[in-house]
């Protein structure tokens, strides 16, 4: 059985994939919780991840992917991971990354507008790329070549570290690992090549195909892409006759259930998707498929949150609920299993394809995963 775990982090991402063969992969890492705020229901990400690693007897991930350099996808990462580029970040207890996955933009992007943490992740990626080991860069060989030339790096000796859109990442294979990751984005089509790099356009979008008990389960991991970007992906993939690469049993929604990932207009009660996006959700969906929104709870109509221009958007959620077999198959990380006490959302992948785990947490697990209640004489007053 393979397992995907989506962590309740508000509008932020971290998805762990545990393969049947024991390998572990992390897509993004955003430790956004405010520890001193007792009303913060977002999970203690580093603790959960450490517990899991400890149980598996390891201190590393086979792959950690940063889909793009927005802080809701990397916050706190430089405090958690062992970085090869600087011994300051190599203290005992830091978690090692065997292979770092980044879009080409992480190497090539200008540091302007980046915070210190993003700069450090860029430094780590560049360090590994220079060293020629422990990294995979997705797409944009043209830009990488430029960067190499400017920085005195032999591009030809780095070529094996680059995987272009339309290919599968070589770290995993269906035969050996029961999974393959097909790269949809980043890719070379751009409206205006002189434009500054747009991180969302340059983010990693993949289709993971899992194999378990001879049954395939397909998951689309869509970072924060917008509707026009999705339209490009759908058109290019369809145009090459590779429809199956768009099929999905599981979707990790882009951008925390933003209407902009469906279409340009939010709509009154339901967002209308543009045609290509509509095809993706309505025609490429496999029976019983589920959609994961890594976001805050979906606001109710007329609430203050509903008026917020930030996602999640109720109208987008309504669209997704409508196209699913069961509206409950839209799963929101901060709503699962309940708004009052969200827990990591686990999807098990086996012969039954995707099964969303819906168990009551045993009391002992709850008790030991949270700080104890305050105790002592002062509580009696």
């Amino acid at each position, binding site marked *: 059985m393979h397992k995907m775990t989506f962590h309740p982090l508000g509008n932020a991402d971290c998805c762990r994939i545990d393969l049947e063969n024991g390998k572990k992969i992390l897509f993004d890492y955003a430790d956004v919780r405010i520890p001193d705020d007792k009303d913060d229901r977002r999970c203690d990400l580093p603790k959960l991840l450490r517990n899991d690693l400890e149980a598996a007897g390891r201190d590393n991930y086979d792959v950690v992917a940063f889909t793009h350099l927005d802080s809701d996808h990397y916050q706190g990462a430089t405090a958690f991971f062992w970085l090869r580029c600087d011994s300051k970040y190599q203290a005992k207890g830091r978690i090692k990354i065997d292979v770092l996955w980044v879009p080409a933009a992480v190497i090539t992007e200008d540091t302007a507008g980046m915070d210190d943490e993003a700069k450090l992740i860029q430094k780590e990626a560049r360090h590994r790329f220079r060293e020629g080991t422990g990294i995979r860069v997705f797409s944009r060989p043209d830009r990488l070549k430029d960067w190499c030339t400017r920085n005195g790096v032999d591009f030809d000796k780095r070529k094996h570290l680059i995987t272009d859109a339309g290919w599968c990442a070589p770290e995993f294979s269906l035969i050996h690992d029961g999974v393959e990751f097909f790269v949809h984005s980043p890719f070379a089509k751009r409206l205006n090549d002189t434009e500054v790099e747009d991180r969302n356009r340059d983010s990693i979008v993949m289709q993971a195909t899992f194999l378990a008990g001879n049954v395939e389960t397909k998951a689309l991991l869509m970072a924060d892409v917008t509707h026009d970007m999705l339209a490009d992906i759908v058109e290019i993939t369809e145009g090459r006759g590779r429809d199956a690469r768009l099929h999905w049993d599981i979707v990790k929604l882009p951008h925390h259930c933003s209407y902009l990932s469906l279409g340009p207009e939010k709509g009154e009660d339901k967002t209308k998707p543009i045609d290509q996006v509509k095809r993706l959700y309505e025609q490429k969906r496999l029976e019983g498929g589920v959609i994961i929104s890594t976001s805050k709870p979906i606001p109710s109509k007329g609430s203050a949150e509903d008026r917020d221009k930030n996602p999640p958007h109720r109208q987008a959620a309504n669209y997704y609920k409508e196209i699913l077999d069961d509206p409950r198959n839209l799963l929101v990380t901060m709503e699962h*299993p309940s708004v009052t006490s969200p827990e990591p959302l686990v999807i098990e992948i*086996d012969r*039954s394809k995707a*099964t969303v785990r819906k168990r*009551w947490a045993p009391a002992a697990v709850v008790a030991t995963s949270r700080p104890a209640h305050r105790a002592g004489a002062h509580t009696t007053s």
Partner: protein
Amino acid sequence: MTTQYHELLGESVDPGQLSIPKARALAETLSGNSRPFVRLVECRSKDDIEVVIFDVEVERGQRTVHPIQSDERIAAIFDRADQATPQAWALRKDFPQVPHLNIAPFDTPKSLCLYDEPYRDLKKRWTVVRFVERIREWLALTAKGILHEDDQPLEPLLTGHKGTIVLPACLQEVGKPDLPTHLSISATCTEDDRYFLVADVEASRRDKAGVRAVASVHACPPQKHGVIRWCPRNLKQLAELMAAAGLDLAAELRDRFRAWEERRRTDPGLLDAHVVLVILIPKVREEGAEPESRDAWAFITGDSLREVGVKLGIWEITDGQLGWLLRPGDDASDDLSVELLNPAFRLTRARAARLSGHRTHPKTKLVAVGAGALGSQVLMNLARCGFGTWHVVDDDRLLPHNLVRHSLNGHAVGFYKASSLAIEANALTEGEPAFSPIEADLLNPKEHAVKLAEVLGQASVVLDMSASVTVARDLALRTDATARRFSLFLNPTGEDLVFLAEDEQRNSRLDSLEMQYYRALAADPELDGHYRPSPRNRHGQSCRDITSNISQDQVALHAALASRAVRQAQATMAAGITIWRSAADGSVRRIDVPPAPTITLRMGDWTLCTDARLVQRLAGLRESKLPNETGGVLLGSFDLENKIVYIVDTIPSPPDSQEWPTLYIRGCRGLESDVIQAAARTDGMLEYIGEWHSHPDGCSTAPSNDDLQGFLYLTELMGRDGLPAVILIVGEGGNTSSYIGEMSRHESLLPRLPQ
């Protein structure tokens, strides 16, 4: 389309009105929004039953094996006395027939079989939360079709029987359908309308006290597990159930009963017998797969065969006369009640082996000599796992004091141990008796001599458990058997167990293994105290007699080790010498002595018996002193009756010896105490028997003039005790000449073993 649910009896009540604590706790847990995936629907109450109805959201994959829906309605049933496991019923009318449902009448809600342990055990851990989660887990795993994990045994197809019936093992096969199997059934329990019946093949019963019955065995085609879920109450329902499983039971019964009835004249009383139906159902995991296991049901009718025939429309009774019906008459089989019984078949040896975790149950022919404390328990251990076909030789009768450490009980006092033991062992399993007694003394078998020689000749293993060196030696030397010899005995304190096993080719003979065991006792500090110095007589013949104050647990411990050792040795070809030493704290230590092949040489009246390891050791000692000669004292044992000299060990050259290239004069410093010690450690089994010395390279092992002089001196000395002189001369290349009683001028070489 809306979902249809079963209606339940009783009146609807508020959760607060529930009075059974568990029901109330469940309702409280479910109400409000504190728990995800559940929703309270209603509570009901009737008499001493309270019901909590709730919806659960099922953890369900995209694909399901069984059509469990994403939401299921469950009724939890609680009884006031809290005697029965709280039930969980699936209320959806079209809830599927799936594995792990409790048996229930037609058209009632399906009852989930949640637990496989009795409620009295479960109660200690039962909580509302665990109960609900178990229901949800049951639904989730059933949806995936993995409630029954692939490596779990297949579940029984039918439960809910009225009691148990013990049946002869032969009824596990259809056998000869045209011949009824006559049974005699007696009840061992009649309370509470539950039965416990024991059925034996009638002919095998000495008493004819039981109820007569005839058994008919039917086999149906292989079934996937967990398909049939209700309990037939009459023959018609049973026939319907079997028809669904691909067996036309009614037709088979008609054919059989006709065939039986035709034999009525030679089988008086047939028609008055009750009918026992045995139905065999091979179970498969997947369609078309090999059957993995087999279910058996037994049904017993209240009617006699005569009435069963009438109700099946085979014949009719007019004025007490039976008349055949040309065409099948009215089927009144719904008036023919049947009771489902859980059949327990008698143990066969194959099953005994399987249940012992053994893959095979060798039918090897064995002769056991000695059925005393150790012997009787070893044999019963082996009988229980179906091991071997045995003759048990023992001429002792059981005395009351034997009961402390014997497997037999007080009923056998006064009877031969061998025969009583055979009866006990044979009573374990059905089929050909595996144990036959020979009430004879092996050394003096009298009228049993012919029989004894015959069984020894046919055996492939002879197991000595006589606790007698004489018997073991006799067995080792007998020529009327080719079998491997094993020997088991305890040391006098009962703390140590010794197992000697010849190899398949008998290259290491039992008497030689015994001597090698003494050699280990003399030298190995691990074996200190095996024979404690004791004031009792030092005749070896009695050294295996255990003292009278040893507890049964000690003997049982060794019998367990011993029976395992016998099984394992039988399965291998190699020889072995093993000693298990038990300590007061319950720990047991195993010491293995590497066995060496036996070397024998006949010289006149005498036979020399030694082993390859000693010969090697002497050669090594010679080598280490070259170019000088060396020598020493030989330890061993005389068997004056069989005229055998066992040469077992040496005390090498004492420090005051004179060793020159062509001369050796053995010294004597420390020698006497060394010999005494060896004797003490082996309970006198090793003693001084003679001398050895080496010849240098380039010389033969024929005696020199000095050697002849020495031999004469030794002959005179040993002759005073009525013993022969023994001298070995060890030369180059492993040549060893031996001289017993007389010394020629020529070499007298020990045979060389193939390497």
